[in-house]
């Protein structure tokens, strides 16, 4: 598979503007939750990056944190970027909603809230459950979720 990650120079240029971000070896970028909206707006609007397409939005539950994962792509330039946000507060995980930046975030955030219990703030009436019943208790994709009838994980 062709390597289409955003080039290192571009990533370094963003780092100069956002001091809080960390860059992994594979060029994945970890952004503090507070910087998420300005960071995403910058890489979307700046024509040097033109990350105009939010491909994928999901989350994973680790022992010490929940982690948001955003897969972005540039239809203009063709390259991709993975952005992550670490949420240390597992009791009350909150991250700003990307709905004002991308309409495509809406259903994906609702799905992530529904199954993983991450609250997306700053967007009116958001999020609500989408796949499960409105009265459903719990968030099934959390590792501590208890369920009957399944195999032992």
């Amino acid at each position, binding site marked *: *598979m*062709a390597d*289409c990650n955003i080039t290192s120079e571009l990533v370094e240029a963003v780092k100069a503007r956002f001091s809080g971000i960390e860059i992994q070896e594979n060029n994945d970028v970890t952004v503090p939750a507070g910087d998420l909206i300005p960071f995403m707006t910058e890489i979307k609007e700046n024509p040097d990056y033109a990350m*105009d*397409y*939010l*491909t*994928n939005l*999901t989350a*994973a*539950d680790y022992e010490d944190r929940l982690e948001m*994962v955003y*897969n972005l792509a540039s*239809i203009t330039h*063709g390259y*991709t970027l*993975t952005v992550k946000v670490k949420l240390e507060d597992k009791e009350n995980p909150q991250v700003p909603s990307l709905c004002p930046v*991308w*309409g*495509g*975030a*809406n*259903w*994906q955030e609702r*799905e992530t809230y529904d*199954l993983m219990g991450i609250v997306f703030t700053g967007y009116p009436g958001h999020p609500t459950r*989408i*796949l*499960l*019943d409105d009265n459903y208790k719990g968030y*099934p*994709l959390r590792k501590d*979720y208890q*369920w009957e009838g*399944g*195999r*032992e*994980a």
Partner: protein
Amino acid sequence: MKTETYTLNLGPQHPSTHGVFRIILELDGETVVKATPVPGYLHRGIEKLAEARTYTQVIPYTDRMDYMAAMLMNWGYVAAVEKLMGIEVPERVEYIRVIVGELSRIASHQIAIGAMGGDIGALTAFTYTFRDREYVIDLLEMVSGSRMTFSYFRIGGVAADLPDEFFPATRKLLNEIPAMCDEYDDLVTGNEIFQARTKQVGIITPEMGINYSLSGPTLRGSGVNYDLRKARPYSIYDRFDFEVPLGTNGDCFDRFRIRIDEIRQSKRIIEQALDQIPEGPIMAKVPKVIKPPAGDAYAEIESSKGVYGAYVVSDGSPKPYRVHFRRPSFINLGYLGELCEGWKLADVIAILASIDIVLGEVDC
């Protein structure tokens, strides 16, 4: 004169919702004031189930997302695991994957074309495309032993080599595909009533398409040239000569029309793949027990509905720690509510059909 709006429940049991799916419509006369899509009736928790299975055991679950193009669903998942493990698959496997993947795309588009015709009142189209789809499915059955849920892909390869009789049978079918497509065009695309129901209806602008993360024919119908096979060629798609059909108006008609053109392009790709396919092994050297190193990987392919991605996290054990599927039907549907506003009730049926959803994939 002021009249009250009223609420109409379209679905969850309705033939034109293509499964169990509900749209709550607030209508002013026949005009849609607000549309609220309600998915989830087919949610099986595949992502959660995957966490209690081995990596290989997840493959049959992917079949059950977009069961109209199950080969492509297999592909996106195994591509992510292979990326995580750094597996290079043999040449022959790449060609086999392209061939069965494109056949799956043809079968899926035939359903989309027939079902859209049926929804709009041209039920005859449905019988024609389903008749032809049987021939495509015959080929995939020859390869995998199944007609719908193939589970043919393996991590590092495919389950079995192509049988000898597959090659002449596929060439025979490919020769018939142009005539099939012409027949769909004569029967449906050129039909005046069909055009009246679909042209300039449910228009998606390129800007909104990109903003709402739409993909596949739903996005390309608006003229956005975004097909992963060209934009970021995966597997061996850079070796084939083919075009990406694009729409101009972003209406239901364009989304419908380019699917027929995509069938013609898939035919070209399969022909070239059959000419070029080398001899060789059908599995890479992979360990008996699949245990990817700890870490995560996201891989994506172009499925018949759009960008299909798989995000896989490994903790080093034989079972995936977390699996997420980026399902194009689900995300394409996220724009439906806004798209339906202002159109007539009958247009909602045309719009929904033109997006081509599969509820197994939407609800996961």
